[in-house]
């Protein structure tokens, strides 16, 4: 393994006491004060995250819309300018290349935001599928810093640093050339926590200033720097999937339970045929929520059992900081997916009792 890359905010993490780990090749803080305290700050106030590891690809050209429409599962043709949608890229067999956010600047200009661990793979996949589309791809991942400010007080705090009326940026919309503490940013009302909040894109040289100003402004209100640890517990409680857990080349969006982001009525997109077939034939397995009834914390990769037989695997599990319960998401054979079905989780030597529950553990607090 080579040395992990440093984001433009690396020194800031050191300054705020971040516990830095190697995440997808990036040196990023898993926590500062503690995962639970940061998790609660985001749920009750706001937290600020360095998410500069995320990848960004620009698509420009007369056929940019057609290209993206073919590339992703969601319907790009109905997007307004300055709108964002969540989508997935699939292989022809319906397995997932990655999930992403699609930002539409204009019919001939999109920004695709992809997972750090998949940047090289995704960019290659896009190039492999550009075919005869009259569009150009540019991987700008190394040129962009990104900060997420998430939580019920996100707007109030950020508003103090800009003349742009943030209430005019609707849920899953964005605005360019927003001056945050004097620095030029792209700001979207998006996030990965189940709370209201913003994702802020800027140049590397501006990130430390923006970060410091947000924390300075928000400190008295209770805004805290937040690490990757709580980013994962927050997104999990809000039923937001993580590539490598709920999503993978071996899992289709329908199995993962995200069919609402797959528009099978679109003329064509990569993976459509396989996904239509899967829909018609019916799912053989799907991801469900579950709650532990016996002691122990379910973890990613643990076996799910019924009467001693393996019927699935845990995709994510935690002792939920918000709900104070041991809960998880698991891919199970379809006959075990009904609510209230008793299942067991293999935790080390013990098969521990659990029960299938609604996977929307936490009701999202989006401002729509």
């Amino acid at each position, binding site marked *: 393994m080579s040395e992990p890359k440093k984001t433009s905010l690396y020194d800031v993490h050191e300054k705020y006491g971040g516990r830095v780990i190697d995440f997808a090749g990036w040196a990023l803080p*898993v*926590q500062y004060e*503690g*995962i*639970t305290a940061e998790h609660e700050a985001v749920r009750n106030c706001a937290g600020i995250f360095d998410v500069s590891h995320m990848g960004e690809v620009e698509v420009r050209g007369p056929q940019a819309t057609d290209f993206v429409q073919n590339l992703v599962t969601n319907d790009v043709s109905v997007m307004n300018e300055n709108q964002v949608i969540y989508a997935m890229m699939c292989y022809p067999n319906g397995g997932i290349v990655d999930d992403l956010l699609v930002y539409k600047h204009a019919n001939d200009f999109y920004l695709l935001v992809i997972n750090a661990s998949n940047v090289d793979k995704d960019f290659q996949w896009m190039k492999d599928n550009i075919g005869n589309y009259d569009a150009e791809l540019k991987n700008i991942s190394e040129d962009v810093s990104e900060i997420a400010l998430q939580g019920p007080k996100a707007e109030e705090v950020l508003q103090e640093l800009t003349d742009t009326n943030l209430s005019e940026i609707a849920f899953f919309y964005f605005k360019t050339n927003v001056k945050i503490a004097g620095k030029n940013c792209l700001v979207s009302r998006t996030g990965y926590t189940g709370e209201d909040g913003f994702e802020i894109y800027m140049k590397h040289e501006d990130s430390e200033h923006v970060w410091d100003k947000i924390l300075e402004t928000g400190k008295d209100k209770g805004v805290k720097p937040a690490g990757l*640890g709580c980013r994962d*517990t927050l997104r999990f409680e809000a039923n937001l999937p993580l590539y490598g857990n709920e999503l993978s080349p071996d899992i289709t969006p329908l199995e993962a339970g995200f069919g609402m982001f797959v528009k099978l009525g679109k003329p064509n997109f990569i993976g459509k045929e396989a996904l239509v077939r899967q829909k018609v034939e019916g799912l053989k397995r799907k991801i469900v929520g579950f709650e532990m009834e016996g*002691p*122990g*914390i379910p*973890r990613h990769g643990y076996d799910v059992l019924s009467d001693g037989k393996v019927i699935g695997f845990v995709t994510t599990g*935690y*002792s939920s*900081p918000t709900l104070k319960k*041991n809960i998880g998401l698991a891919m199970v054979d379809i006959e075990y997916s009904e609510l209230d079905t008793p299942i067991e989780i293999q935790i*080390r030597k013990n098969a521990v009792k659990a029960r299938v529950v609604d996977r929307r553990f936490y009701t999202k607090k989006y401002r729509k």
Partner: protein
Amino acid sequence: METKSGLLYSKDHEWVRVEGEKAYVGITDYAQHALGEIVYVELPAVGNELNAGDVFSVIESVKAASDSYLPVAGKVLEVNEALSDSPQLVNEDPYGSWIVVVEITDKAGLDELMNEQEYREFCDKEA
């Protein structure tokens, strides 16, 4: 990092307090800090006979599960049931929160352990 005199320490960051034939075992301040907030402590069954180096407890933080290794061979006499309801006690008071008491069945393992001073030096090198 806090340490305590009179205890023995393992390279896996467990502490041992020997009282006659009995040994109280827990994890060190260094270990609890490295783990972060502890949300679950899996305790062994009373009566289990374990070898030195066997996993006697699994300690889970929000993020992950970590094995704890018994530094000395012994038979489990007692487990700290208070940790079932209040696992955070290990964070708050690692040297007061023993996890198991074992009846030592082979004292050989004790020779491998460090005293307070040696353990502090060991941790300095790890950091």
